[in-house]
């Protein structure tokens, strides 16, 4: 075991982690621990753009953007945070441009902007061009630009270091962060990083679904580490299903395709979104479009031999426009489906995409251990966190924005904290829990296999807690997850070695997915209403009287060692926007 000491430690090197690292490295001695090489992070898979009311191509302002974000989140958004997001969006985009990001340009040479779902002019009048973009690889360009600037700033990375535990210490009755414990993939060695400030920026948890746009590596590692140490997880029942994943594969096809004029059609060729969202049509918010697609499929208007998908039709757009604005996604259709998007419509279905919930933070990125108490020295930003700017449903282009605005804020706040504070003493045997976990898995002769449990989990989640949910389906999921968690205790791996043991890594990741799936299902069961991405067929309406509140899920351990989930609730911050019925 090795012990390292840094002022600031950042866990994760996607957009939020690297944006934080650029700020924190200038101000404090910083280490970035990352499971993947930084440029492998899933920020790079984001396509369509980053929202900011630059008003480069038409009238726009951040107040309209704030409103759209709050309405998009079905009023579960904390409005103070949404206002910061929309206001700081403008400088965030300009900062990236100054760092070198190659945005597409207008004829005037300014940053070009395009339409995206749920973004409107003057509070819902019509779609507005707010998404700043670099072709259909905006996330790739953000990830590259941030990594380039990390190279420039000399950011210190520990690549392929997998953080498995968060160390918290009671100091005079106050729970403070003391460090993290990481497993070095190349050697199997355990490392303890003592730090004054820690930022979790480890990304999402979509891999508990089967059809997902998420990378294999998005397994909720940060959420699970915090949760196991007694910190709450907020709004985990809210998961976004992106309307246009490649049928069966789940690979993302950007909403920018519809922003450029693409149309969704059912088997009769009908532009069905006109029925569900007369104003915004194909550019309604993602939860609305995904539900509409499944409604078409359920009512027998789906495409293909099994009627289980619909089409994204780009065939009326000029090939030059597709080549210039959507080259990657058209290539995905050619590579993975063997079809030509110039002339063929693309078979699509909704795909599990984004966790609105996560580790609760305030607007400075400080992690909360209950409704209002911060954990001194602990921060979170990006998809792992819940600020909450996305509420019950995130708008497209607001996540690339989120990682930049709140990654930057967390980086500055953490570095300032570490400048003013001393190290918290490490607990005795700080790595013991991780050593036990790793050895138990590596040495186990259990009969259960990771692949089988993971497959059953993913199938259960797709079947029961996806776009449509009922009490019955969620209960089925809770029961099944409980059974899988029992079986997981008896899991073993084939690779017993220390060097690049990805077999072991997958077993650890599965443990995280199981914990978080259970939190999600239990949170969803208790929310007896429909709001944003959480749609209950047995409670089809939003219920502001009883459920205009954030869910806070805590892990409880009984005297006999038994685990359970305790749910609590936190009020939503409302400033100037009163909840209204949501129509697109």
């Amino acid at each position: 075991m090795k012990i390292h000491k840094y002022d600031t430690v950042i866990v994760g090197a996607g957009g939020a982690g690297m944006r934080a690292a650029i700020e924190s490295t200038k101000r404090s001695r910083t280490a970035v621990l990352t499971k993947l090489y930084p440029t492998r992070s899933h920020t790079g898979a984001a396509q369509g753009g980053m929202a900011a009311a630059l008003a480069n191509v038409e009238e726009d302002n951040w107040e309209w953007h704030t409103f759209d974000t709050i309405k998009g989140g079905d009023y579960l958004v904390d409005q103070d945070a949404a206002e910061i997001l929309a206001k700081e969006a403008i400088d965030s985009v300009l900062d990236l441009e100054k760092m070198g990001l190659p945005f597409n340009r207008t004829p005037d040479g300014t940053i070009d902007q395009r339409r995206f779902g749920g973004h409107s002019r003057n509070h819902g009048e019509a779609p507005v061009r707010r998404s700043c973009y670099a072709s259909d690889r905006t996330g790739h360009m953000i990830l590259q630009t941030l990594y380039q600037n990390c190279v420039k700033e000399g950011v210190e990375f520990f690549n392929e270091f997998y953080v498995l535990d968060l160390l918290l210490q009671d100091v005079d009755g106050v729970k403070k962060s003391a460090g993290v414990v990481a497993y070095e993939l190349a050697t199997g060695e355990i490392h303890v990083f003592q730090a004054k400030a820690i930022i979790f920026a480890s990304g999402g948890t979509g891999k508990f679904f089967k059809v997902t746009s998420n990378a294999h590596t998005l397994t909720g590692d940060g959420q699970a580490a915090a949760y196991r140490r007694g910190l709450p997880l907020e709004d985990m029942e809210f998961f976004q299903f992106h309307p246009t994943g490649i049928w069966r594969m789940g690979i993302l096809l950007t909403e920018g395709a519809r922003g450029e004029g693409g149309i969704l059609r059912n088997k009769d060729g009908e532009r069905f979104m006109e029925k569900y969202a007369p104003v915004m049509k194909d550019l309604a918010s993602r939860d609305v479009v995904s539900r509409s697609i499944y409604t078409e499929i359920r009512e027998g208007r789906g495409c293909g031999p099994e009627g289980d998908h619909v089409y994204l039709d780009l065939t009326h757009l000029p090939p030059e426009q597709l080549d210039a604005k959507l080259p990657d996604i058209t290539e995905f259709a050619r590579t993975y489906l063997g079809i030509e998007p110039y002339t063929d419509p693309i078979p699509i279905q909704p795909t599990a995409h984004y966790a609105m919930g996560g580790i609760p933070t305030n607007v400075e990125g400080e992690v909360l251990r209950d409704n209002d108490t911060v954990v001194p020295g602990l921060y979170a930003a990006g998809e792992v966190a819940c600020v909450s700017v996305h509420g019950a449903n995130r708008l497209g282009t607001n996540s690339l924005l989120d990682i930049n605005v709140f990654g930057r804020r967390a980086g500055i706040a953490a570095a300032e904290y570490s400048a003013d504070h001393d190290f918290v003493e490490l607990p005795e045997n700080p790595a013991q829990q991780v050593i036990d976990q790793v050895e138990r898995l590596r040495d186990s002769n259990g009969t259960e296999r990771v692949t089988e449990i993971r497959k059953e989990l993913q199938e259960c989640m797709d079947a029961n807690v996806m776009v449509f949910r009922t009490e019955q389906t969620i209960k089925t999921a809770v029961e099944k997850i409980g059974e899988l968690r029992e079986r997981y205790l008896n899991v073993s791996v084939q690779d017993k070695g220390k060097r690049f043991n990805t077999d072991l890594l997958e077993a650890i990741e599965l443990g995280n997915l199981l914990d978080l799936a259970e939190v999600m299902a239990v949170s969803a069961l208790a929310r007896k209403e429909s709001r944003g991405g959480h749609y209950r067929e047995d409670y089809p309406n939003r219920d502001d009287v009883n459920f205009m509140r954030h869910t806070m899920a805590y892990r409880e351990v009984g005297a006999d060692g038994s685990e359970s989930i305790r749910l609590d609730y936190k009020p939503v911050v409302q400033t100037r926007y009163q909840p209204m019925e949501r129509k697109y």
Partner: protein
Amino acid sequence: MSSPTLEKHSAALDAAENTASQMITATFRIRRFNPEVSEEASWQDFQLEIDPKERVLDALHKIKWDQDGTLTFRRSCAHGICGSDAMRINGKNRLACKTLIKDINPQKPITVEAIKGLTVLKDLVVDMEPFFQAYRDVMPFLITNGNEPTRERRQTAEDRERFDDTTKCILCAACTSSCPVFWNDGQYFGPAAIVNAHRFIFDSRDEGGEQRLEILNDKDGVWRCRTTFNCTDACPRGIEVTKAIQEVKRALITRRF
């Protein structure tokens, strides 16, 4: 309103939507190496049932998950954007997640081995550090002098287009590890580093071109390139790598870029 394309399906769309199982038996011949077990590398055959429309990455996962958990490779996004899974498949550098089994003749054993020119650490995992060091050495970030504007820097659409191709790079190392010069001399910067220098040298906003050109004028720089076009063939992003290297060479001679 109905779309003409929906009334009559193309054969390609019908094939894409065909859900009938078309499983075949394929053999994957994989180069194994684990110094914890043996200092010698060796080939190992795995047979599996698989739909030829699936990716080589899917096959590797099936082998790892159902047959041999010790098989080790890097992967993340699984659709060609993260750059983790460059490997040598049937003797050619490709991303496992962008290569469909039907496209590489599954009637014969499909060989899979680590990319060349970088030290193999275990099975298909190589040491990426020298590759990233070469990248860092070309100063891959925007260099500007003078005061920053308050708004964005202006750039015409044409100026933006000038370096568009090289912004697509995902740093997967497929190009660099396909280069015979790099195989023989690991000191050579390699195509990927030059591509990333190109991305800034030809960016109208950048003022560090001279510095980067000096670095690439080095004995291990662009002049080592023998224009074999392996890199261009290998690039999973379709970047015209050799052309970019030639443009950097030309810029070195003319000092115009």
